């Protein structure tokens, strides 16, 4: 503990003298939250669509109307020949092409099957999947409408509703909990709190130590009798305080700007955030024991951040990952913290609900801190 007070006082002097650190610590995350929070929108709508209607009569117009009325498709162009149709898709002006054959109406009226060609640009799989599902659903709805007309005409039905009208035999009644309006920011913004918190704590600590290594002041410190624990704690505590204040700030932005209320216990949320801040600082410390220069620290920092963003369940659901990767996600601390954040904020989960994640995060924190403390020596190499 030798020299802890000296290091602490010095670190706070640095922070006071260097408005850059405070800027990085407070303003940037809020900006990031604002930008990402608004930009990340997973509901896919208005897919640009080109229509080639070779039939043009009522039945085909009704079908095209159905495409237009779904918010999924946005008809940007109606063409009259095959070549323009193909070019619209190849040229990227439209992601989806709907082609109605000339005999569409005849076939329907004649009781035969009519086919509508729907071409989908598969480059972006998420957009393509949405287009595919919606197109199938539209086709099914149109078919059901025709089937109902037919059934009514012959006075028979598979099932009827209480009012005695023709109905589908099985009705699924889904109810959306916690986020009934399916607003994707509700899901993303709490998680962003975790990602940004890790970003800041990781970079603040690793830079604060690696900068001293580059300047030679770390070597100078090694020649003094300052204790290892004093040196490490003196480096971590100021940034832990900073990280914690930042958590409060980001949560305020989340609640009052994005309107995502915290349903669960605020005290539990802050306590577990502190645990996560410690983990992030530990990661920064670990990076600083490996990196000799600030550019190296930056690269290593990104090497840590990328899996945290891609594999933690922030961007993509972990359940959909290949088994090996899925197991790997348990080694990423932010994975647990995202579960905790979403749990407390959206589902008002309590400590008991979150216990497995709390244990996971604690284990990560201990391992990372132990590893970095072991690696951090008052020695040059």
């Amino acid at each position, binding site marked *: 503990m030798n020299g802890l007070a000296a290091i602490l006082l010095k670190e706070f002097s640095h922070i006071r003298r260097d408005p850059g650190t405070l800027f990085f610590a407070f303003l940037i995350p809020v900006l990031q939250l604002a930008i990402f929070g608004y930009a990340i929108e997973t509901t896919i709508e208005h897919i640009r669509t080109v229509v080639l209607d070779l039939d043009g009569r009522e039945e085909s117009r009704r079908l095209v109307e159905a495409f237009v009325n779904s918010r999924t498709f946005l008809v940007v162009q109606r063409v009259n020949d095959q070549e323009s149709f193909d070019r619209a898709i190849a040229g990227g002006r439209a992601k989806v092409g709907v082609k109605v054959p000339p005999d569409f109406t005849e076939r329907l009226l004649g009781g035969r099957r009519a086919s509508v060609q729907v071409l989908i640009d598969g480059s972006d799989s998420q957009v393509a999947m949405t287009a595919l599902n919606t197109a199938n659903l539209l086709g099914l709805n149109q078919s059901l409408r025709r089937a109902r007309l037919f059934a009514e005409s012959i006075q028979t039905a598979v099932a009827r509703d209480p009012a005695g009208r023709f109905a589908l035999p099985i009705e699924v009644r889904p109810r959306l909990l916690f986020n009934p309006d399916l607003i994707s920011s509700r899901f993303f913004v709490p998680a962003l709190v975790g990602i940004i918190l890790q970003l800041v704590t990781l970079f603040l600590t690793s830079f604060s130590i690696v900068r001293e290594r580059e300047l030679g002041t770390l070597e*100078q410190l090694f020649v003094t009798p300052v204790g290892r624990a004093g040196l490490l704690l003196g480096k971590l505590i100021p940034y832990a305080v900073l990280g914690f204040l930042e958590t409060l700030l980001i949560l305020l932005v989340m609640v009052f700007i994005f309107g995502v209320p915290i349903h669960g216990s605020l005290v539990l949320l802050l306590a577990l955030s502190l645990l996560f801040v410690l983990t992030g600082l530990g990661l920064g410390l670990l990076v600083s024991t490996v990196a000799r220069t600030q550019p190296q620290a930056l690269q290593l920092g990104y090497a840590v951040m990328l899996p945290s963003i891609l594999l933690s369940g922030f961007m993509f659901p972990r359940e959909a990952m290949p088994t090996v990767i899925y197991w790997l996600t348990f080694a990423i601390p932010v994975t647990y913290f995202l579960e905790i954040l979403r749990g407390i904020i959206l589902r008002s989960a309590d400590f008991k609900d979150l216990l497995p994640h709390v244990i996971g995060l604690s284990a990560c924190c201990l391992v990372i801190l132990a590893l970095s403390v072991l690696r951090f020596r008052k020695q040059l190499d």
Partner: protein
Amino acid sequence: MNERVVRAAAGNGAVIRAESLTRHFGKLLAVHQVTFSVPRAAIFGFLGPNGSGKSTVIRMLCGVLRPTGGTGAVLGHDVVREAEAVKRRIGYMSQKFSLYADLSVEENLDFYGRIYGLRGPRLHERKGEVLELVSMTDRREQLAGHLSGGWKQRLALTCALIHQPQVLFLDEPTAGIDPVARRELWDLLFDLSARGVTLFVTTHYMDEAERCTHVGYIYQARLIVCGRPVDLKSLEAVTPAGTRRLELSCRQAAAVLGRLRRAPGVRDATLFGERLHLLVDAALSDETLFRELGPEAEGAEVRPIAPNLEDVFVTLSRGEAARRGL
């Protein structure tokens, strides 16, 4: 080679002692079996080309770099096993400015004072003393980053002195500062030495080496000579039997340098301004030498001289290079 290492001091009174100190960095041999000792209150000048291992030796003696072989002790404490005990008693001024540029002079001093456990009135008193020593009392509030090179070095020295260390390691303290600041810094060092502080200084400047009580010269990881300057100058290997050192003053000294180097009986010739320092066979008479000079011989004068430290280091490192076939 050991017979040429003039022992700096009788073993027991030594404040710094290195025994076969060795350090590898992977396959690179940075320091090879370096052995020497430094007595109390000495000013030990440690010289050698860049990359010869000077800083590595200092770092090992300061307890921040583990030797891969041999042992070192400072004030009787082993530099590996009792590194922290060593660190409490020494001061260290590294090669480059390594204080906090965004902190003021006083804040830097406060920081190092607290690290060494000074606080309250004691810290205040020590700050006053060291600032007085280097005449920086009126610069307390200035940011360290805004000081000029010479003042930065003084601040680094005050920080290294705040806890009254018994031994001070200075790694090229005068590199890149102006001659006046250099002279003043050396005056400070003499002052400290007079108070009983042992100084270990690396430098590139021969005039600084001449001011030291003891010098060591490290060349390609090996300490090739070590001792008092006066003893080193009379080493046989520097002026071998059957040779003598001469100073020659003549017109066009630079022009005759090449001619003399090729002349029979002349072993070495070095230019010092308008004069030449020569190492010649004892058999070579002054008259023969003047004949070699040709027209430039008119008005030329020659006198016998003792070697200076540069002669010592140049001769010995050439000899070492030749012996090791480099």
